[in-house]
């Protein structure tokens, strides 16, 4: 409650006046001798209680009068939320900001938060005055404004609201929506502004925004209508799939993949045995029962065999009865399994006798020659006749290559920086000083010198040679060797290898060591590509690895890893509502068509000589297909297909911290117009003083009724009773005072 003239409250100090008057009046009582005082005392004694009550009531009434009158004069009022048309005020500019993000699909008592928000908004709209101006902003990310100009025709906002089919699967950006509301307000010439934000007030709606609080300056007061119906102490329950992916199966079998999903329990109670279904190409592929700790998450993993590779669509589905948010129980994956890795094998030591050739074993390990879809397509060239463009391959292997022309080295470096892979294997033709000079930017570590432990044909080679020691089994290349039988890798003999110069720890990762501590396999990233250095040979000159069972899986995994084909493509997953870059792979299409999960077709037209990529915002969760129109022919590019899922943040229903919201609102209030009426006008002012005055009049009547003297009452009654309707023949009936001498 507020007061228009609070200083007038000082008038309440007069409340002591009746008591003072009573005391003074008592002192000024007329002294009158009266003989039958005994009868007065007796009467007074009989009436004492009644008189005391009457006196007390009179005192109360008089005190109330002195309290109520100053209070009424201060003109108290309340600020209400609605019913503005009943209050006289200036026209109002109202921008409604409706949160229609994915989290607004949460069900409470059978209705979504979005439906509640829309109902509330329509109610508020109907209570505005006809001269008020309205606009509508939707608070998904990025925000949009179906009614982007303030206008008196409220039907526009109503129609826009009724046209909304429901909450979008997009994420929330409340500060961005408020910034848009501020821009709309800026175009209005009405001084009285009001911004009403209807939202579930989830934490991510405020915290994930790129808009800092300062950018909301000038917006003014914001009324937040929190529809979540929850208090800050209680965390609502919700189970959601927040991430997913696939990778080569740890078992190492060809065509075996691990598909995993990360499930998060946002509630504060543990959930046991919730079902997780895997659908592969719209066919059920398995079910797992998952236990979820309170507030924690679990990764569920399916191992599936997809021998034919190719493109596949996978979907995880949580089996949850009455889920509060259905959309986050699904997760879509697009599996690209048919992209055979192509490798350029550069032979540094070609021989006429095949098994003495440097690449004899590697070539056969990468491609068995049988029907082998998961194999690596390799092209073998001699180092001296090397003229193939590196960009035609996913990975380049330089096996015991003495040197390359500097031009080719530069092309190779460019190829790697753009995502290609390079495997360097050593041999007797490699000179450390040459390599260090030639491949300085590519080598994970500089080469130092040869460490020769024995000769291959030495009878004591078994004793003198070193073996593989510690290996990083968490790395995709060596994951399979952590399984039973994987220890065979450690049994290989290595007679010679090249020592590496020590270097500062950083991006270089040593994946395997020899038994004597020397590094066997080191890797680092160059640009977006990778370079691996195998410090011994890939043929039998320095090691017996090529004739070991571990050779084939190790080399295949290493080449696939360098070519980055071993796990989910980083560009095959997208988030709904967020920009996604589509790499057109130098196809120079005339047109790009994207088909969304609902069958909607989005046509993008890149410039003729435009960039090799396009940006697109997936509007729905699901699988997307992309077709390119090239030379008048439209063809679907499966390798460009991707899937989009909800922003994981939208699945978290926890409320935003008060401090966070307050920081935005405080920033919004700064720089607002100084008109004192502006801040108060957005809310309805309910005047209380008429009611207080009415109460004052009522108390006054009661006081008069109690204080009036009997004799005065009798006189009044007599006077009133003396008026009569008098009728005389020939005259009209008139009201006359019948008492002699009374005035008519």
């Amino acid at each position, binding site marked *: 409650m507020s007061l228009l003239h609070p200083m007038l409250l000082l008038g309440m100090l007069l409340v002591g006046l009746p008591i003072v008057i009573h005391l003074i009046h008592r002192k000024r009582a007329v002294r009158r001798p*009266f003989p039958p005082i*005994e009868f007065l005392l007796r009467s007074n004694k009989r009436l004492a209680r009644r008189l005391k009550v009457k006196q007390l009531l009179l005192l109360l009434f008089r005190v109330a009068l002195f309290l109520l009158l100053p209070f009424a004069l201060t003109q108290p009022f309340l600020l209400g939320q609605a019913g503005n048309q009943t209050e006289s005020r200036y026209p109002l500019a109202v921008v409604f900001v409706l949160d229609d993000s994915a989290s607004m699909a949460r069900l409470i008592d059978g209705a979504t938060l979005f439906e509640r928000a829309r109902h509330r908004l329509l109610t508020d709209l109907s209570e505005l005055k006809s001269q008020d101006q309205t606009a509508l902003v939707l608070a998904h990310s990025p925000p949009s404004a179906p009614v982007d100009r303030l206008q008196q025709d409220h039907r526009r906002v109503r129609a826009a609201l009724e046209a909304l089919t429901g909450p979008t699967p997009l994420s929330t950006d409340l500060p961005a929506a408020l910034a848009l509301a501020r821009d709309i307000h800026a175009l209005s010439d009405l001084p009285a502004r009001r911004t009403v934000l209807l939202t579930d007030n989830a934490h991510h709606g405020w915290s994930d925004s790129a808009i800092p609080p300062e950018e909301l300056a000038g917006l003014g007061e914001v009324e937040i209508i929190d529809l979540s119906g929850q208090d800050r102490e209680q965390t609502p329950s919700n189970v959601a799939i927040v991430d997913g992916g696939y990778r080569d199966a740890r078992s190492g079998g060809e065509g075996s993949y691990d598909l995993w999903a990360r499930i998060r329990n946002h509630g504060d109670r543990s959930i046991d045995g919730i079902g997780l279904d895997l659908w592969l190409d719209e066919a059920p592929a398995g079910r797992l029962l998952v236990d979820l700790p309170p507030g924690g998450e679990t990764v569920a993993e399916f191992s599936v065999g997809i021998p034919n590779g190719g493109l596949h669509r996978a979907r995880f589905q949580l089996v949850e009865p009455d889920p509060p948010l259905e959309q986050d129980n699904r997760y879509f994956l697009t599996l690209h399994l048919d992209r055979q890795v192509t490798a350029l094998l550069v032979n540094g030591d070609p021989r006429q006798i095949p098994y003495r050739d440097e690449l004899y074993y590697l070539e056969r390990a990468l491609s068995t020659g049988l029907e082998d879809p998961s194999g690596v397509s390799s092209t073998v060239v001699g180092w001296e006749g090397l003229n193939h463009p590196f960009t035609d391959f996913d990975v380049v292997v330089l096996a015991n290559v003495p040197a390359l022309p500097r031009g080719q080295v530069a092309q190779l470096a460019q190829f790697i920086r753009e995502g290609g892979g390079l495997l360097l294997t050593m041999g007797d033709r490699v000179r450390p000083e040459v390599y260090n000079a030639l491949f300085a930017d590519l080598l994970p570590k500089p080469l130092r010198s040869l460490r020769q432990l024995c000769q291959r044909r030495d009878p004591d080679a078994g004793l003198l040679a070193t073996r593989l020691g510690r290996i990083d089994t968490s790395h995709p290349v060596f994951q399979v060797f952590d399984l039973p039988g994987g220890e065979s890798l450690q049994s290989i003999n290595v007679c010679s290898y090249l020592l590496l110069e020590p270097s500062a720890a950083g991006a270089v990762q040593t994946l395997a060591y020899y038994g004597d501590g020397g590094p066997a396999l080191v890797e680092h990233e160059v640009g977006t590509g990778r370079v691996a250095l195998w410090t011994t040979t890939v043929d039998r000159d320095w090691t017996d690895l090529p004739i070991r069972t571990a050779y084939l899986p190790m080399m295949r995994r290493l080449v696939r890893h360098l070519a980055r084909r071993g796990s989910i493509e980083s560009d095959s997953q997208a988030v709904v509502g967020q920009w996604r870059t589509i790499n057109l792979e130098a196809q120079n299409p005339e047109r790009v068509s994207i088909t969304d999960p609902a069958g909607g077709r989005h046509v993008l037209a890149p410039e003729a000589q435009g960039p090799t990529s396009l940006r697109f915002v997936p509007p729905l969760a699901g699988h997307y297909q992309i077709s390119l129109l090239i030379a008048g022919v439209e063809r679907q590019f499966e390798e460009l297909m991707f899937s989009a899922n909800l922003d994981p943040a939208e699945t978290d229903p926890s409320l935003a911290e008060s401090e966070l919201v307050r920081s935005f609102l405080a920033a919004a209030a700064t720089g607002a117009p100084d008109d004192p009426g502006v801040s108060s006008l957005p809310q309805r002012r309910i005047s209380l003083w008429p009611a207080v005055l009415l109460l004052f009049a009522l108390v006054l009547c009661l006081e008069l009724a109690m204080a009036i003297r009997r004799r005065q009452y009798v006189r009044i009654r007599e006077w009133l009773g003396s008026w009569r309707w008098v009728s005389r023949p020939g005259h009209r009936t008139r009201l006359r005072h019948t008492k002699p001498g009374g005035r008519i």
Partner: protein
Amino acid sequence: MRREEDNARSTGLVDPGLLTSLGSLRVRAKQVVEGAIAGLHRSALTGVSVEFTEYKEYSAGDDIRHIDWKSFARTDRYFVKQFEDETNLRAYLLIDCSGSMLYGSEGGPTKHTYAAHLAAALAYLFVHQGDAVGLLTFSKEPGGYLPPGSRQSHLEDLFSLLENSASGGGTDLSAALMTLAERARPRSLAFLLSDLLDTSPAAMNAAKVLRQRRFEVILFHLVDPAELTLPFEGLTLFTGLEGEGGLVVDPDDIRDQYKKEIQGYFASVERECHHSDIEYRRVSTAMPMESVLLDFLFWHGRKR
């Protein structure tokens, strides 16, 4: 009562307020009596004397010439001889001179003034009929006493005692009545003029004793109009005239209850008098004295 005042004005009777401003008590008494007699068709008190002789114990005021010295020699007590020719009628006037009798509402006589004038008128009437009349004033204690006499000089003494009788203080009606019972001869008339605010039962018992001694008791109950109606307004500090304390009250608040209380008391007094064969006459000090006297004479004569 208002009607009676109006009647007094219409019949030319003397207003009680005006009466007090007239000359001496004799003149006033004469005026009242003449006004009353003028309204009578016959004397209400003629031919009622009793002829016998007797002794009466001497009391202060008795003529010492009438002391029977022989009886004194025999009994060592003073007795006064009573003669047939002076014992037509003996009347005693008992005037309440307590503090409460000094009250008179605005514009009117005090109750004591009214009682004194009424007593003077009665004395004047009795003496001029040849009857003897005595006087006893009282308050807390019995005051002046004048034994009955029928001479003109006795009347002067009586008037003098009346004019100097106002004393104030409390009331002990029973003591006064018992004093009269001791001093007065039985079969006398006793006129008690009081406001009867001594509500003790002893007073009424003493009146009954008097009656048992063959006194004919006539009670003039003097009431000020304000005592009946409590006409005051505004917060008032009421104080008693006989040391009863005070009360601050708005008369409006208790008027009805007060009326109920006091009228109940008056009714109980009247009822007691009726049961004790005491003639009760409530007299408002606003009433013309002639009409009170006339009324008394008329109705008393009829009663006899």
